[in-house]
């Protein structure tokens, strides 16, 4: 994967530089300077908080809590003690939060995907009355963010006696379905009909065509959808905060929030926890780059 990334970057740089040369003939140099200045400002504003998150997680308290604050740490202040505290601490079982988040996101996105694969195929390929209605219904979901439904869903979950992580898995997995229907539906439509028809000619039933032809051909899209679903669950805060009562069940967002409110000035620990929470997201994001636009545009669940 890394190799792929490098060759694609190299290719785009090569392509860009030839275009750039052409461009540079027309554009006066002050204009180019202004252009790079603007790009620089945009990058600085976007990235500085992440830089400072990392720095804060890697320095000791005396450097952190002093006036005036500084942007660049002295080498002597660098330490891993925040990470040690995070992974060794008994008051805030961070490793447990991490595993809880991992478990809930893995299970709920797998369940969501299992349902949405077949649903998406159905309205992408099969013809029946009401199909467009279902497809539009997916978009109506868009308007109903988590907060609008939190009271009735909470009441329903209380009535089912599921105020725990099972309830949270169920909520996340149902919230993932519209995303899965939308992304996979778009993808299945791009699978050439002729290939499926050839399968039908060879005596496969429609279900066999789906399982033996369409799904294997759609593997990248399925992986990408799974990862988006995973991220939705990994980042979700609202439902986790109302459904998880027992500290041993907390997910990362709830655990980090607790850490920050329970103690004064633990920014080193909180930022270390934030870094650890962000890393899986970045790894997934690197993998997902090519599917970027569609998935991100569908949005989040709260």
């Amino acid at each position: 994967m890394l190799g792929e990334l490098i060759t694609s970057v190299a290719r785009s740089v090569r392509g860009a530089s030839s275009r750039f040369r052409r461009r540079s003939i027309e554009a006066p140099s002050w204009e180019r300077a202004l252009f790079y200045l603007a790009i620089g400002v945009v990058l600085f504003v976007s990235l500085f908080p992440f830089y400072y998150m990392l720095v804060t997680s890697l320095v000791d308290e005396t450097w952190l809590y002093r006036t005036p604050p500084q942007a660049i740490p002295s080498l002597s202040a660098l330490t891993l003690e925040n990470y040690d505290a995070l992974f060794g601490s008994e008051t805030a079982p961070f490793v447990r939060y991490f595993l809880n988040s991992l478990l809930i996101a893995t299970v709920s996105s797998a369940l969501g995907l299992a349902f949405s694969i077949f649903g998406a195929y159905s309205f992408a390929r099969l013809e029946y009355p009401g199909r467009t209605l279902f497809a539009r219904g997916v978009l109506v979901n868009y308007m109903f963010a988590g907060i609008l439904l939190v009271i009735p869903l909470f009441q329903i979950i209380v009535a089912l006696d599921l105020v725990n992580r099972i309830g949270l898995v169920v909520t996340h997995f149902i919230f993932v379905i519209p995303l899965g229907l939308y992304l996979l539906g778009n993808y299945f439509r791009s699978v050439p009909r002729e290939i499926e028809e050839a399968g039908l000619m060879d005596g496969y039933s429609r279900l066999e065509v789906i399982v033996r032809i369409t799904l294997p051909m759609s593997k990248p899209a399925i992986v990408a959808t799974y990862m988006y679903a995973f991220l939705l669950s990994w980042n979700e805060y609202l439902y986790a905060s109302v459904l998880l009562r027992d500290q041993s069940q907390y997910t990362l967002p709830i655990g980090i929030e607790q850490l920050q409110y329970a103690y004064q000035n633990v920014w080193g620990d909180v930022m270390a926890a934030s870094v650890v929470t962000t890393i899986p997201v970045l790894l997934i994001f690197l993998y997902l780059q090519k599917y970027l636009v569609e998935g991100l545009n569908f949005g989040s669940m709260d």
Partner: protein
Amino acid sequence: MSISIFDREYTIEQKEALLGYALILPSVLLVAASLVYPVAYNVYLSFTEIPLDATQSPEWVGLANYEALLTDPEFHQAAVNTVVFTFFSDVGATALGLGVALLFRNTFRGDGVMRGLVLLPYIAPLIAVAFVWRWLLDGNWGLAAYVLRDVLSVYPGGEDIRRNIETVILFDTWRYFPFAFLLILARVRSIPNELYEAAKIDGAGRIARFKDITLPELKFVIATVFLLRWIWNFNVFSDVWLFVGNDVPILGTFVYVKGFETFPPNQGFAAAVANLMVVALLVFVIVYARFVLEW
């Protein structure tokens, strides 16, 4: 499967349709159970008082929750804040996204990597970005607070700038401009260069080219981005809650506070607020789709 039992009685088209229903049905049922039913149930709950004890059923109180709402100054404050927040953070994110997309119109050295980096605020977990901004703006030790207050004198000492609605708007703009950027960029890059070259030859200046080529070409995507961001900003909860708590009350946090953070919780009342939000949003979307998007 039940379909195969009836093999002989159905044509291929009918079988396909049956299979179609069979495959979509589980998803439709689940989504209905999590969307249609709760929306209806929420209407009922808003006419009740929900007891703390889950074994008791909600008590019918008629319009009492709505009457209480209309005279509640906290609700008025939250409603005003929500409209202000939604409008300005939407305009901010869309305008900034447009600006950055125009910067990326021509490819340049490393633009793929930079595009990825610009997306980070939007990709990163909310909890991480909300807390890093809290830390940067911390009144005692925050770096951004120090620079803004003591170096640039943007605001006087003793004030906590994080608790201003303007700051919440800026935070949201920072987090969501990459969304607008992504959508608009795709459209920006599809505008043919010939249009600009022809205009240049005809003597059109920079401003004229922007006004007469760029904006008309982007009108639809900008209007769409504005609508999508409006829907999310209006319904926002977690972003504002994690960044500023209840210090800048908006409708989303008002629902949460009334339903879960006050004792005793008043979930019937919170349900009424959520219902009014649904109605207000629906009206906005319909009016917007008709008059701006001209559907």
